[in-house]
């Protein structure tokens, strides 16, 4: 039985993305919970989302408040709290982004009755202790010092600041002095008077039934917590549309340059998302992309090059990023622009276009593998007010994108005059 090794097996190349919509429950306080249930695993993930956004929080406040939540409450110190969470096999992580901040609990169903009261305690009754704040400031300044020796960190930071401006909530970056200026009383005031008052939403995934939901609802029913309010669209000001800018960040002693090229580019709706995504994958979104084939597989300039989005609630950054040997940095940048120009001039072949669609379609199915990833993917869309079937529509639209549409995306979206570039490294 000799298989045909030249042709290979037949394949299916369109995939239908199937996933259940969340069950939306409104608690006794009006708090919304989005539930993604699964009975096949014992795991439970609960994400409590607050408005720790850069529009609401003064510089670094949300970041410090969330990191300090587990460091002490009225009744328990940090060690006791962490010991208890650990004892009940529970991991807590915090995620502070430009648009919201959340506390995520990872546990097993059987530990929920013990762990949920503790979760409530850290969310609502933290004292943000002074000595813990001191430790955290030191640790954060150390991390910042180390990061400032890294070209990738410096390029990311400079790029975001360049695109939005340093005063913009999305462009604002912290320095050591900002960390030192954080005061406990200001944090407590922000935590109690702003953050908690702006409410919460829960994203719950895993083995959660009626009993588990009731535990949560009972615990939060008498807390006075309101449904989550996030900043209104009017809080966001788009940066002025202008020509692309360039900047260079000196990082002494580095042997590579980190390059970032792109722009602020809002995207709306599944149709536009499908067209731009197909174009983006083709340019730099997968291993076989034009940029990888050129910079890595043809020239050996880099270990990797990618293009893609950084997603915000009110807009997106689209960018190409790579780390390349410093002697070839200029050449690599030229090749990136060459590949963009080529896409603006010539439509891709049917074969390449089909490959990109298949890759993107299959990759979407892969990303929705379990209920925890489903909750993570759906969260930003739900918080943006998008319809829950956004991804189903997006996934279906992929297969309708034409070669001409890809070229048009390259022409309008990646107009080279409008792209900004940052590189970080040693001159």
């Amino acid at each position, binding site marked *: 039985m000799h298989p045909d090794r030249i042709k290979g097996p037949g394949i299916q190349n369109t995939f239908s993305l199937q996933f259940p919509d969340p069950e939306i429950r409104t608690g006794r306080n009006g708090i919304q919970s989005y539930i993604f249930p699964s009975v096949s*695993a014992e795991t439970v993930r609960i994400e409590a989302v607050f408005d720790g956004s850069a529009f609401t929080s003064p510089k670094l406040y949300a970041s410090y408040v969330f990191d300090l939540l587990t460091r002490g409450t009225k009744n328990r110190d940090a060690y006791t709290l962490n010991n208890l969470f650990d004892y009940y096999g529970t991991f807590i992580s915090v995620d502070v982004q430009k648009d919201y901040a959340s506390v995520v609990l990872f546990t097993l169903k059987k530990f929920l009755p013990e762990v949920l009261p503790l979760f409530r305690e850290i969310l609502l009754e933290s004292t943000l202790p002074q000595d813990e704040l001191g430790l955290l400031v030191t640790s954060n300044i150390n991390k910042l*010092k180390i990061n400032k*020796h890294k*070209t990738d960190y410096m390029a990311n930071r400079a790029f975001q600041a360049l695109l939005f401006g340093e005063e913009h909530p999305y462009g604002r970056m912290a320095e050591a002095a900002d960390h030192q200026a954080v005061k406990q009383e200001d944090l407590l005031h922000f935590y109690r008077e702003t953050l908690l008052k702006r409410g919460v939403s829960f994203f719950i995934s895993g083995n959660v039934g009626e009993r588990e939901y009731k535990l949560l609802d009972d615990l939060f029913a008498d807390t006075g917590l309101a449904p989550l309010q996030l900043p209104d669209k009017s809080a966001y000001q788009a940066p002025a549309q202008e020509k692309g800018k360039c900047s260079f960040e000196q990082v002494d002693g580095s042997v590579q340059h980190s390059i970032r090229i792109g722009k602020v580019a809002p995207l709306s709706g599944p149709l536009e998302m499908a067209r731009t995504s197909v174009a983006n994958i083709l340019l730099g979104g997968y291993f076989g992309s034009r940029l990888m084939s050129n910079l890595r597989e043809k020239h050996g300039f*880099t270990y990797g090059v990618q293009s893609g989005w950084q997603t915000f609630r009110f807009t997106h950054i689209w960018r190409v990023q790579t780390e390349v040997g410093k002697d070839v940095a200029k050449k690599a940048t030229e090749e990136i622009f060459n590949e963009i120009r080529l896409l603006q001039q010539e439509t891709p072949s049917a074969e390449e276009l089909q490959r990109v669609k*298949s890759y993107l379609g299959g990759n979407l199915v892969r990303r929705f593998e379990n209920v925890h990833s489903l909750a993570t993917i759906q969260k930003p869309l739900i918080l943006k007010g998008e319809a829950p079937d956004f991804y189903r529509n997006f996934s279906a639209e992929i297969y309708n994108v034409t070669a001409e549409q890809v070229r048009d995306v390259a022409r309008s979206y990646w107009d080279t005059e409008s792209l900004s570039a940052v590189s970080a490294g040693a001159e």
Partner: protein
Amino acid sequence: MIAFERYTLKNGLRVLVNPDEATQMVTVNVLYNVGARDEEPEKTGFAHLFEHLMFEGSLNVKHFDKPIEDAGGMSNAFTSNDITNYYITLPAQNIETAFWLESDRMLGLDFSEEKLNIQKKVVIEEFKERYLNKPYGDVWHHLRKLCFKEHPYMWPTIGKETRHVEEATLDYVKHFFFTHYAPNNAVLAVSGNVKPEEVFALAEKWFGEIPAREVPARDLPQEKEQTGERRLRVEAKVPKDVLYMAFPMPGFDREGYHAVDFLTEILGYGESSRLFHKLIVEQKIFDDISSYVLGSLDNGLAIISGMPAEGVPFETAEEEIWKVLLEIKEELIPGDEIQKLKNKAETSEAFDLDNGQNKALKLAMFENISKAEDANTIRDRYNALGAADLQAAARLTFSREKANILHYKAI
């Protein structure tokens, strides 16, 4: 718990299948029993360079990734000191594409000088990106050399230096392939929405005709027991001093491994760990500290690493660590503290197993070490540990004459 079935082909390839109807995807994982420990001292970094070449085309397939992408999948690989692991994840209906590609590159590679030269450049950029272009990036180069005097764990998977990668020849690439990339030196593990008997039939169809090859038995120089403290001081342009203390310990499947693994968690994993609480929070001797094991298959290392607080000299920092180590040698660890580790491990494992890639990898890893069944019983080995076992392991491991101490000094 990973439910699976096993089938072994005549050429020695072992096939494991975990059927999972909850997913639309499937992961096909091929593990080769070869890693950086199998390299020659003057040809280091080769196993990893070779991993790159495995994506550069095989006998009948010019471009490895294109058919995967056409089938809606993705693939990747990693090399460790012990093994080289490849995987393809794709929609379950297209599983046969993965069998075609993986079997073709096990059958033979399409070697060319040009492809080798490009991948040398790519790997040298990877070397720069991960090890040279970051503060503290070369720590493991120094630490491995200090701790291993005989065993090839003395170099990291990326290799001792970029020169070794530059000097790789096409002849050696061929030699390496025929020596290690044999069906009888590999494990194929599949997890996803598939039926075991269908997977076994695919394995016969695509891998059955690949001949078994003679794989030389591994005979690596083993470390002699360390009998005296070793020290190294490295100066570098980094923002802060960092202290490393490394102690020899048993390999992954050996007696005593699990106790030391637990001890390093008690010492330095998370904010309720002893080193964190005592030396950061209470005494402010360190700004940052953690403890962990290498997890290598041959005898490896238990590590404590930390960043001393401003103005704290290395010597003071070290002595404070020794005090905490003395406690776990002299006093029994309370039952609650041990139970805490068991509960954390249970949760971590449950989240790990929510992912098909992890399940396939885990089956392959255990089959390669001993047998895949052990993936489902490994927790028992941890759960059986009591306070006396941990104390005995602490006494055996954390002694001054077995310490390897690295001062990474900021200048």
